[in-house]
């Protein structure tokens, strides 16, 4: 095994003794990951808590309301000329996000192969899918706000908490996707320009980057997909 930062080769113990020795080594605890990746994981853990608290508050209001909860299957149905298909919009959004996760993972892979062009193109495709997702979410919000009259304090379907929970959870997730799209484009530009091949310094940190940044970006993007898995299950399907 080679440390990605130091280049040192060392045999490391595995299993439980490995955890103890990693954490008690009086050095960094996360041995073979670059610091940026470790920090991204810790950020994602904190983000997990934020989204979990949103979903928990949703669970609490839904369990404690005495008015029936609106049925998402009908609310998010769309008809393409014929009978309305239940939840189809959300299903399409789910598939779009999963597709973007796939292109992201390919981008990470080609990044480590230092295939500049393929990495940049795949990052841009991922960003395009992400933007499509946000676009469909905007469509969904518009439909609910303008046509159905859903507000954070009231809605025509049932329990009034539905609106606040919906706007808060999907809004926060959509914000995450939007930020992700922005950073995907920034990183794609850097990859395309060859910043990570020539060690060009970043405009903000003045540090030299490398292709591990693509993987760190990938962690964030997969996390956004991961959160959607939970939102899809608990908010739309439950």
């Amino acid at each position, binding site marked *: *095994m*080679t440390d*990605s930062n130091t280049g040192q080769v060392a*045999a*490391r113990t*595995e299993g439980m003794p*490995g*955890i103890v020795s*990693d*954490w008690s080594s009086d050095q960094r*605890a*996360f*041995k*073979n*990951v670059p610091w940026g990746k*470790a920090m991204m*994981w*810790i950020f*994602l*853990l904190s983000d*997990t*808590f934020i989204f*979990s*608290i949103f979903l*928990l508050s949703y*669970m*609490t*209001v839904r*369990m*404690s*309301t*005495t008015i029936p909860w609106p049925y998402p*299957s009908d609310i998010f149905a769309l008809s393409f000329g014929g009978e309305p298909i*239940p*939840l189809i919009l959300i*299903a399409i959004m*789910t*598939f779009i996000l*999963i597709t973007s*996760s*796939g292109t992201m*993972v*390919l981008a990470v*892979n080609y990044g*480590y*192969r230092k295939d500049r062009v393929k990495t940049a193109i795949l990052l841009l495709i991922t960003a395009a899918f992400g933007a499509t997702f946000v676009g469909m979410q905007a469509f969904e919000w518009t439909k609910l706000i303008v046509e159905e009259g859903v507000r954070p304090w009231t809605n025509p379907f049932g329990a009034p908490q539905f609106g606040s929970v919906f706007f808060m959870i999907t809004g926060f997730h959509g914000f995450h996707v939007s930020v992700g799209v922005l950073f995907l484009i920034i990183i794609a530009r850097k990859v395309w320009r060859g910043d990570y091949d020539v060690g060009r310094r970043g405009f903000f940190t003045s540090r030299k980057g490398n*292709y*591990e940044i693509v*993987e760190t970006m*990938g*962690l964030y993007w*997969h996390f956004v*997909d*991961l959160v959607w*898995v*939970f939102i*899809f*299950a608990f908010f739309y*399907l*439950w």
Partner: protein
Amino acid sequence: MAHAEAHVEGQQHPLGIYFKIWALLFVLSTLSYLVDYYNFEGYLRWTLILLFMFMKAGLIISVFMHMLWERLALVYAIALPTIALMVFVFLMTNEADNTFLLRGIYFLGLGGS
């Protein structure tokens, strides 16, 4: 888990595994959508939703986010704090049940008097 594979640089794995997991995620998403489409209800619905959800989440974290190949020191540092969330779920289900009962008594007059 967490094999000390020869990482020349970062997480490099054959493309095949990504395509397989990608396909599997599509299948699982379709299945979870079909749970709604075919209107399964009650415990069957909830069990299936949770099953597909955890399978998808597990695949994304372990393969796409490479947790399968990370050292246990990192895996545990990220995974263990989420146990606190399970405790929180337990606390809030109790709290919600309590609120529901109180609302039943005071809003709907189920408490008599």
